[in-house]
């Protein structure tokens, strides 16, 4: 490749067709980028195909009954994941409910002029740091801090509000509640970061117009800013939900790993991801296939949620 020197510009035309070397370099770059893209997409399909193939014997043998039964008994060859699907969705929904309130509140706090910009940046970094804490550390923290801290709260809730299904059983330790609390904290950075982006993308003029019409700051936030950023915030919730569905290690340490269906948050439960983590190492034969089937179910749920999230984001971008 030869550079066009300014001195030469007079003797040669400034605009010239690309040299052969440039064409080749461009082609290589093009092909490389193309290949990287294909590899990523191929990897996704490869994973789905591999898990699907592994699951096939169980799909044929157990059929859709697998999704409707709550028994997991390798000794008798009976497998079902209804309790795990229930535990996955219930824990993720509760965690998201907590994380959405906190996350959106944090996003409002950091974007609506409550803090000066430098302090807001510090807060933002601190919240994003939560995403960098390893799952096992969250699990250990849950065992040593969250469970003892929840004990008196749970005892009071069970004693006074025990007639409500979520508090119907006494708290023993590892159960849905500590899992949900830790999960909510793990999902918080996702929800907070994307909600902040959504709020920041609302043009300043919109807020100024609201103030111009005589709105107070809280009116401007609740009546104007939040509705304007609604689709972006919704997308943050969907992506946070996707993150909650797949969380494994912290939940496996806190949730009690007991495959049963209960409304009570103080009862032990299980999730698809922690079932996979605890059973896969020693599984053989049909159980391996059944676990692959469970992985397929988890994959289908989280892919579905992520597709919905991406679609909501796309709509949001078009609207914005």
């Amino acid at each position, binding site marked *: 490749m030869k550079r066009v020197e300014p001195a030469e510009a007079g003797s040669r035309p400034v605009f010239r067709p690309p040299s052969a070397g440039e064409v080749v370099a461009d082609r290589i770059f093009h092909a490389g980028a193309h290949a990287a893209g294909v590899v990523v997409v191929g990897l996704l399909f490869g994973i789905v195909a591999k898990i699907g193939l592994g699951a096939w014997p169980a799909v044929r043998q157990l059929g859709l009954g697998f999704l409707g039964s709550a028994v997991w008994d390798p000794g008798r060859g009976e497998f079902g994941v209804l309790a795990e699907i229930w535990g996955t969705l219930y824990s993720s929904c509760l965690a998201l409910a907590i994380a959405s309130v906190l996350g959106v509140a944090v996003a409002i706090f950091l974007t609506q002029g409550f803090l000066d910009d430098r302090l807001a940046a510090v807060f933002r970094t601190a919240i994003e740091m939560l995403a960098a804490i390893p799952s096992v550390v969250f699990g250990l923290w849950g*065992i040593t801090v969250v469970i003892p801290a929840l004990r008196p709260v749970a005892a009071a809730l069970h004693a006074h509000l025990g007639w409500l299904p979520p508090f119907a059983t006494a708290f023993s*330790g590892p159960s849905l509640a500590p899992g949900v609390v830790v999960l909510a904290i793990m999902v918080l950075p996702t929800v907070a970061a994307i909600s902040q982006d959504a709020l920041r993308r609302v043009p300043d003029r919109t807020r100024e117009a609201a103030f111009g019409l005589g709105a107070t700051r809280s009116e401007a936030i609740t009546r104007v800013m939040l509705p304007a950023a609604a689709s972006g915030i919704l997308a943050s919730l969907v992506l946070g939900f996707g993150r909650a569905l797949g969380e494994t290690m912290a939940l496996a340490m806190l949730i009690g790993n007991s495959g049963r269906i209960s409304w009570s948050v103080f009862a032990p439960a299980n999730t698809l991801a922690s079932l996979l983590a605890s059973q896969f*190492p020693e599984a053989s034969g049909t159980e391996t296939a059944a676990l692959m089937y469970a992985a397929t179910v988890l994959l289908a749920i989280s892919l579905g949620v992520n597709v919905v999230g991406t679609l909501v984001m796309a709509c949001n971008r078009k609207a914005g």
Partner: protein
Amino acid sequence: MRPSFVGAALALAVALGAPAVADTRLTGSGASFPAPLYAAWFKDFSARSDGVTVDYQSKGSGAGIQDYLNRVVDFAASDAAMTDADIARAGGNAVLLPMTAGEIVVIYNLPGVAALKLPRAVYPEIFLGTITRWNDARIAAANPGVALPDTPITVVVRSDSSGTTFNLTSHLAAVDPAFAAGPGAGTSVPWPASDRLVKAPKNDGVTATVMQTPGAVGYTEYGYAKLTGTPMAELENRAGVFVAAGGKGGAVALAAARFDAEMRAFVTDPDDTEAYPIATFTWMIFPKSVADPEKAAAMRQLVAYALDEGQAMAESLGYIPLPAAVIERVRGAAAKIGAGS
């Protein structure tokens, strides 16, 4: 400064140069029950032997057998020995050797209760979830003078497939027909569905969960409970005597063991008045045909070490040394390692 640096460099050079004679590496995986003892054995054996290194991964008996069948490891360890079906799946290429023995203890977390006796009629029902509170009349009757709290019992069991579970459930099924008809005996059993039943991974996970949960009861190998200082219940044996773990009760229980052709023996409910009710041998599984003769020799050396020096170490770590008669039989069986099938 300088001389110490030179000295360190020399020491390093010697250390690096020493094992150059032969470099044989044995990898094994399996039972977490004897893992503390095996870790001590393998460290000592690797240090003494000429360039043989033994790596052991404690991941559960079930996982060890899977690894062995998948030929990922050179040897496996299991508290449930190996079933006939699994031996067949290995193409008969397995020598089962009892290596040490241990007791399984029922641990509990009751603040203020230092000693607890659990009658034979009671502890299977606790694990079945039919006795649900600590101040149940049947527990109180066996513990006069102990202030049992009015707290619910949280049962902690293993979430993974485990030889410890196999031995506990075999015993419970032998004692209580309702347990045999319900969960039954196995490395991973369908525990009764209850809000008061929590599953935790491995011996250490169960110990940690019991220690964190007031009112919890669980089961682990004796060494783990001893190491962590978790209170253990005295269990009533078949003769009606309450026996604590850690004495000679385990050895007495196993003295009655009758080995089959594959060197397997389980004592699900010992008769002796001094016997501790839940004791078991634990096995290492070696291949009969080994491609590398050096590896086969290293395996035989390892077994010889474990049967001689190793047994002395067992007692101090809370395991039961093998009876002399069993050691002789194991020594004989160990000759099959690498001898071809």
